C-alpha cells in the first residue's frame, strides 16, 4: 500500500530518495527514473519471493505450542509459499478464552445462595465445642443454565429467597416466568466444570445438596468499616506513644523517599474505605444440616452481616463430592 501510494503521488520521473519498509531495504535508488522501475505487481511479488527465499538455517519442521495445536511448517527449500496467518490452523493462544477455560479450576457441582443467620456453637462427638455459622437455604431454585456452546462456559444461575412481585422489575418477572419459579430475592451464578454439573431449570437446591462433613467455599460481601486508618486497615504499628511523638500516634509514618522519585508510589497502603469487599472463606466444614428447617451449620466465621446473602459451593481444593 505504501509503495503504490508513493508512486501514484509522485507522478513524475523521480521517486524520492529512498524507500524503506520496516528495516528491510527493498528498493533504494535516488535517481532512477520511472521506466527503470518494474511494474508494481512484479515489484510486490519480488518482495514476497525475496521474503520467502531468505535462507533459514535452522527451520524446525513443526512448532509445538504449549496448548494443543501443532502448526505444520513447510521446509525452507520446498518452494512453497509460506502460509498466511489467516490460512494457518490457528493455535489456541495462551490469552484466549478457550485456553483460559482449560486452565480454570472449577467445582464439579453447583453451589447455592444462602442467608447468614448468626453464629452459635455445637459439640462434636468428643464433646469439643465448635463455633459454627448458621446459614439458611431458603427456596433456592435454578433459574437459568449457561452452556459452553451458547455462552462460552458452564454455569448454573440460582435464585433464592422470595420477593413480592410488585417489587420486582418487569424484565426479571419475565425471566422468572420463563423459568417457572416465583420471584426471587436474589439471583447469582455458579460456574461448574462441565455439563454434568448442570441442573434442570426450576430444580430446587435444598439443604441436602450438602453433606455433613464435606468442605465448602463461602464468599460474600464483607461488612463495611467506613473510612479507616492504616492501623485498622493494614495492620500498621503506628508511631510510638512517647519519645516526642505528638498527636500522630496512629499515623502511617513515612510514605516514601525524597526528591527521587518525588512522588508517592502507586499502591501505597494508606487510610481509606475498608470493608465491603468480596471475601472468600475456603474449606469450611459442613458440621450439621437440618433439612426440616433448611439450615446448614458451617464451621467458623462467614463474611458479611446477618441476613446477608452468601454463596456456598463445594470446596475447590478438596476432592469432589459425589
Amino acid at each position, binding site marked *: 500500500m505504501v509503495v503504490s501510494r508513493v508512486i501514484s503521488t509522485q507522478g513524475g520521473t523521480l521517486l524520492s530518495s529512498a524507500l524503506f519498509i520496516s528495516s528491510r531495504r527493498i528498493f533504494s535508488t535516488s535517481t532512477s527514473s520511472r521506466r527503470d522501475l518494474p511494474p508494481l505487481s512484479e515489484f510486490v511479488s519480488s518482495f514476497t519471493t525475496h521474503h520467502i527465499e531468505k535462507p533459514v538455517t535452522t527451520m524446525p519442521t513443526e512448532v509445538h505450542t504449549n496448548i494443543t495445536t501443532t502448526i505444520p511448517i513447510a521446509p525452507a527449500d520446498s518452494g512453497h509459499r509460506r502460509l498466511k496467518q489467516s490460512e494457518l490452523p490457528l493455535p489456541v493462544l495462551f490469552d484466549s478464552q478457550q485456553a483460559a477455560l482449560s486452565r480454570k479450576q472449577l467445582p464439579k457441582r453447583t453451589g447455592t445462595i444462602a442467608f447468614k443467620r448468626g453464629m452459635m456453637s455445637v459439640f462434636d462427638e468428643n464433646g469439643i465445642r465448635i463455633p459454627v455459622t448458621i446459614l439458611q437455604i431458603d427456596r433456592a431454585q435454578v433459574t437459568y443454565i449457561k452452556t459452553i456452546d451458547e455462552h462460552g462456559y458452564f454455569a448454573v444461575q440460582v435464585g433464592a429467597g422470595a420477593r413480592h412481585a410488585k417489587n420486582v422489575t418487569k424484565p426479571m418477572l419475565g425471566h422468572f*416466568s420463563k423459568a417457572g419459579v416465583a420471584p426471587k430475592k436474589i439471583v447469582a451464578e455458579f460456574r461448574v466444570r462441565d455439563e454434568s454439573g448442570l441442573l434442570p431449570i426450576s430444580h430446587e437446591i435444598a439443604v441436602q445438596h450438602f453433606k455433613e462433613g464435606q468442605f465448602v467455599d463461602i464468599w460474600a460481601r464483607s461488612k463495611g468499616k467506613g473510612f479507616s486508618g492504616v492501623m485498622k486497615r493494614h495492620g500498621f504499628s503506628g508511631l510510638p506513644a512517647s519519645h516526642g511523638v505528638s498527636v500522630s500516634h496512629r499515623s502511617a509514618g513515612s510514605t516514601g523517599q525524597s526528591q527521587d522519585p518525588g512522588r508517592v508510589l502507586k499502591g501505597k497502603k494508606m487510610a481509606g474505605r475498608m470493608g465491603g469487599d468480596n471475601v472468600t472463606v475456603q474449606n469450611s466444614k459442613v458440621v450439621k444440616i437440618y433439612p426440616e*428447617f433448611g439450615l446448614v451449620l458451617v464451621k467458623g466465621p462467614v463474611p458479611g452481616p446477618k441476613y446477608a446473602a452468601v454463596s456456598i459451593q463445594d470446596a475447590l481444593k478438596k476432592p469432589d463430592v459425589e
Partner: protein
Amino acid sequence: MGLPLLRLPVRGFPVAGTCVSALRSAMRMTLEDSRRVQNAGYQLKRKPTKLPIKILQPGPSLLPKGSEPKQLLEQKLTQELDPTGWRRQLFQRSSPLALRPGDVVRVVFNSETNQTFVGTIMAIRRRGLDTSVRLRSEVAQLGVEMSVKVYSTSVKNFEFISRAVKKTRRAKLYYLRPDEKKGK
C-alpha cells in the same frame, strides 16, 4: 398485589387535578384482578404478540415466620444434650440446688478412666448452651484452672463436695489467683 404492574401505562407525570384521578382509577383493583391475585398464580397483561408473564406465588419458607434459627436450634440441642434438665438446674440462679461461686465440686468426664477434676468454682458463665464454669485448684503447689463446658457431651457428672465457707461478695472470684506483683 401486582396492581401497579397491571395498570402501568399511565402517561405523563401526575399533575394535580386530572392526572391524579387517572392515577387513582389506575390503582383501583377490579374484582377480576383481586380474584387473579388470590389464586396461586396470575398473569400480567401484555400485548398479545408478547409472551405472557406468569407470576407464581412463593411457597412458605421452611423456617416458621419470625422465628430465630439460633433459638430454634438451641431448644432442639438442649433437649438432645440435657433431656432430664439436671445441667440446666445446676446453673439456674433460681434453683435451690444451683452451684454458686466458691463451692467445691468434682467434675467427672466421659472417658474410659472416668477422669475427674476437683476445684473451687471461680466463675460461672451463663450463656445457654455455651454455659461454662471455671474451676480452680492446686496440684502439687501449682495453681490449675479448668474451664468446663456444662453441656458438653464429655461431661458425665458434677459431684457437689461443699458449699462456700462464707457467702462470696463477688460473682467472679478472680482474687483467688496469686498476685503476680507480689511474686507469691
